[in-house]
């Protein structure tokens, strides 16, 4: 190989490129398709040469029609969410029973019987094991139900039609219709939603979808929302309306999340992302009957377990940290108490408190453990009885008892509302952050996607707190 000859070949190509003009790519593609048509003419016979296949066309006419398109969509989404929430209840409480109420005490007893030092069993069993168990119990059932259903719809070919129907809405905020799907996926799990943005092949729109996925309330946050809404919002209306009121509050938060998603998408496409390339296209593939069991299997393996594994990996050290900060003393106080003290002022400005802020910091790995951590820390600072000991996360079986504990910790209706807002608007969990980094391969966008929602959360809770205090 001779370097000089190669250079001259490249030089020649540069010369020729400008002789043949800038239609080269057009011409080449046209010639390939011309050859293709010729070959097809000789070899393919069909009596439906240009018509798309009849059954497909019929289904499409219905699912994209003015009259039925949207109702069908909402119905499908509603059914999927309903099955997920209702269906997850039973296995969730079963898992909690086994992992938290049976295995955990058993492990503790076992540790005591072999004379394991208290700090080691505390660290391993109360810290690491408990955090992992909690994440599994809360996260696994809804994901194991949600993802397979979603995947079935995907395999059937219905989801591209949803993107097609909704694209005009998303276009207005500079996003891609397929973001409707990654957003819905985010209701299951933001990390999975971020991975799902691979279906968006336009760089700008894909980044928008990745950055805004966190505004979909994921299943780690639904329980927080429901619990707090039931305790505090349900309490301010007459008993008969309380469940409706708390349900509406939770839905209101989810809808608010969507509003933020659209607004932030719009702002991003108009500012920081306007230089990214944007190429829209959306293929509507033919419908194919999904193979039920195979789909269930693959979606469990590919989506549920992978996401769960990542969450566990991140939750384990978080559990350790939670136990450590509430058991290591500096002077007379635990690290947790110091941290809570120093953040109380800022927390007050936001209408929250130091406990909540600390819980959100240590629970970055998994939103599932926010409530147990808050309860544990509240017991720790208020010194009330109850709880399972320093650094041992717990939840109470009765909503009333939980409410009483939180009120003893100084919670008001404002704290509850702002906690719900902050649970929607804060940084993505570390699994999601890691996934964003893997998908974008860009530190810049990962940092942006992590910081932006927290700042929004600070601003929103701050404003709500001040206005609330002005009025009441």
């Amino acid at each position: 190989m001779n370097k000089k000859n190669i250079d001259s070949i490249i030089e020649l190509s540069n010369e020729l490129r400008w002789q043949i003009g800038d239609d080269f790519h057009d011409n080449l593609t046209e010639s390939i398709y011309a050859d293709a048509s010729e070959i097809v003419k000789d070899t393919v016979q069909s009596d439906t040469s240009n018509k798309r296949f009849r059954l497909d066309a019929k289904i499409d006419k219905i699912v994209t029609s003015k009259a039925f398109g949207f109702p069908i969509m909402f119905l499908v989404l509603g059914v999927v969410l309903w099955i997920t929430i209702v269906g997850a209840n039973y296995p969730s409480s079963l898992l909690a029973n086994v992992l938290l109420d049976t295995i955990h005490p058993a492990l503790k007893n076992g540790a005591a019987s072999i004379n394991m030092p208290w700090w080691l069993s505390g660290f391993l069993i109360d810290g690491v094991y408990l955090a992992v168990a909690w994440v599994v119990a809360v996260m696994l059932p809804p994901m194991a139900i949600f993802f397979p259903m979603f995947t079935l719809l995907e395999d059937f070919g219905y989801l591209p039609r949803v993107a097609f129907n909704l694209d005009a809405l998303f276009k207005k905020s500079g996003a891609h219709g397929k973001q409707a799907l990654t957003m819905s996926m985010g209701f299951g799990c933001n990390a999975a939603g971020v991975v799902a943005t691979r279906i968006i092949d336009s760089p700008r729109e894909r980044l928008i979808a990745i950055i805004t996925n966190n505004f979909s309330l994921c299943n780690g946050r639904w329980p927080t929302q429901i619990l707090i809404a039931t305790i505090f919002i349900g309490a301010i209306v007459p008993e008969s309306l309380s469940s409706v009121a708390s349900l509406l509050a939770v839905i209101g938060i989810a809808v608010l999340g969507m509003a933020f998603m659209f607004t932030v998408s719009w702002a991003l496409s108009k500012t920081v992302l306007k230089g990214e390339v944007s190429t829209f296209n959306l293929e509507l593939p033919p419908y194919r009957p999904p193979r039920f069991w195979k789909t269930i299997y693959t979606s469990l393996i590919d989506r549920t377990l992978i996401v769960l594994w990542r969450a566990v990996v991140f939750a384990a050290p978080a559990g350790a940290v939670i136990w450590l900060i509430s058991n290591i003393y500096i002077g007379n106080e635990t690290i947790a108490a110091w941290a809570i003290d120093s953040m109380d002022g800022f927390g007050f400005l936001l209408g929250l408190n130091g406990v909540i802020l600390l819980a959100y910091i240590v629970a970055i790995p998994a939103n599932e453990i926010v409530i147990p951590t808050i309860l544990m820390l509240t017991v720790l600072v208020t010194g009330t009885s109850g709880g399972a000991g320093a650094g041992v996360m717990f939840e109470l079986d009765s909503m009333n008892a939980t409410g009483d504990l939180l009120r003893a910790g100084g919670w008001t209706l404002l704290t509850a509302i702002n906690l719900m807002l902050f649970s929607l608007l804060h940084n993505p969990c570390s699994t999601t952050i890691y996934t964003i980094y893997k998908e974008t391969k860009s530190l810049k966008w990962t940092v942006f996607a992590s910081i932006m929602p927290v700042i929004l959360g600070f601003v929103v809770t701050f404003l709500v707190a001040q206005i609330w205090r002005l009025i009441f």
Partner: protein
Amino acid sequence: MTTYNPISALILFFVIAVLLFVLFRPIKGWFWILKKNFGSNEKTIIEDILKQLYHFENSGNKVDMKTLVQVLGFNHTRVVDAIKKMTINDLIYFESDILKLTDTGREYALRIVRVHRLWERYLADKTGFSRSEWHDRAESMEHVLTHDEAEQLSVRLGNPKFDPHGDPIPTKTGKVAQVNGVELPLLPVNSIGRITHIEDEPEVIYKQIIAEKIHIGSLVRVVENNATRIVFLSEGEEFKLAPIVAANLTVAPIENEVVVEDNIARLSSLDEHETAKIIGISKESRGESRRRLLDLGFVKGANISIDLMNPLGEPHAYLIKGTSIALRKDQAAKILIKRD
């Protein structure tokens, strides 16, 4: 905590918010303005002067100090200082009142022009910025890119010879290709030409041309040409321009017979149950999005019809080569068709 009350907290918040806005809002934020003024050091001024002189020289105009200061919009004394320095460094010289480039000066100017035009090419081909932004972005980039970086960029873009306005990009050795063609008003009625250059100055006229959706590389056929207006067809649409505007378009007459289709329409105008053949993709569609359309089969001669309307009116799904592909209205408007 003692001084806290919600009103003062809110006021403090809004003061900070307003301050941040005033400082950092895009383009007009104080921070950016300061940064620009602070950043437009001597190097920038010298390079801008060289570039201006080069352009004046090319258009055959003579320039003295006064016009130069007017054109550049920098502080008078700074320009005078820069010119003094440039004369000493043998970049320019005076011929009585008229400023002229030395050979070294011209070489330097060509390098700046090269970077500017390369960057515009880059913005057009590889990014999503709209074409009204290319020029300003290239203006600031031309002072930043080093010679080597410009070289790498050029290779990455396939060593382009023309920028997206059709202006030649000087080669690294300083050679400048000729734009071939004549001003549009000189193209005889009914003959066909290809637009090879769109002048981007003065800005008023350029903005008007951009608004008209006229694109480099598209074919035009003049149908009327007189002292008050020039009427021509391009990509299925009829344009009426004043001669002074039309003069900013350069077209190369096409000698060999090309068939220019009549009755060209845009795909966005296709109705349900109509069928059509694709004639081509408008030159408005560039870079990655153009390639994507071609890859998907939107090529000359393909049959196309509407497969699905949309409950929200947009996008429509089109049936092309056996597959249903949805395109937004603005994309469909870039595909030229002829109804069957």
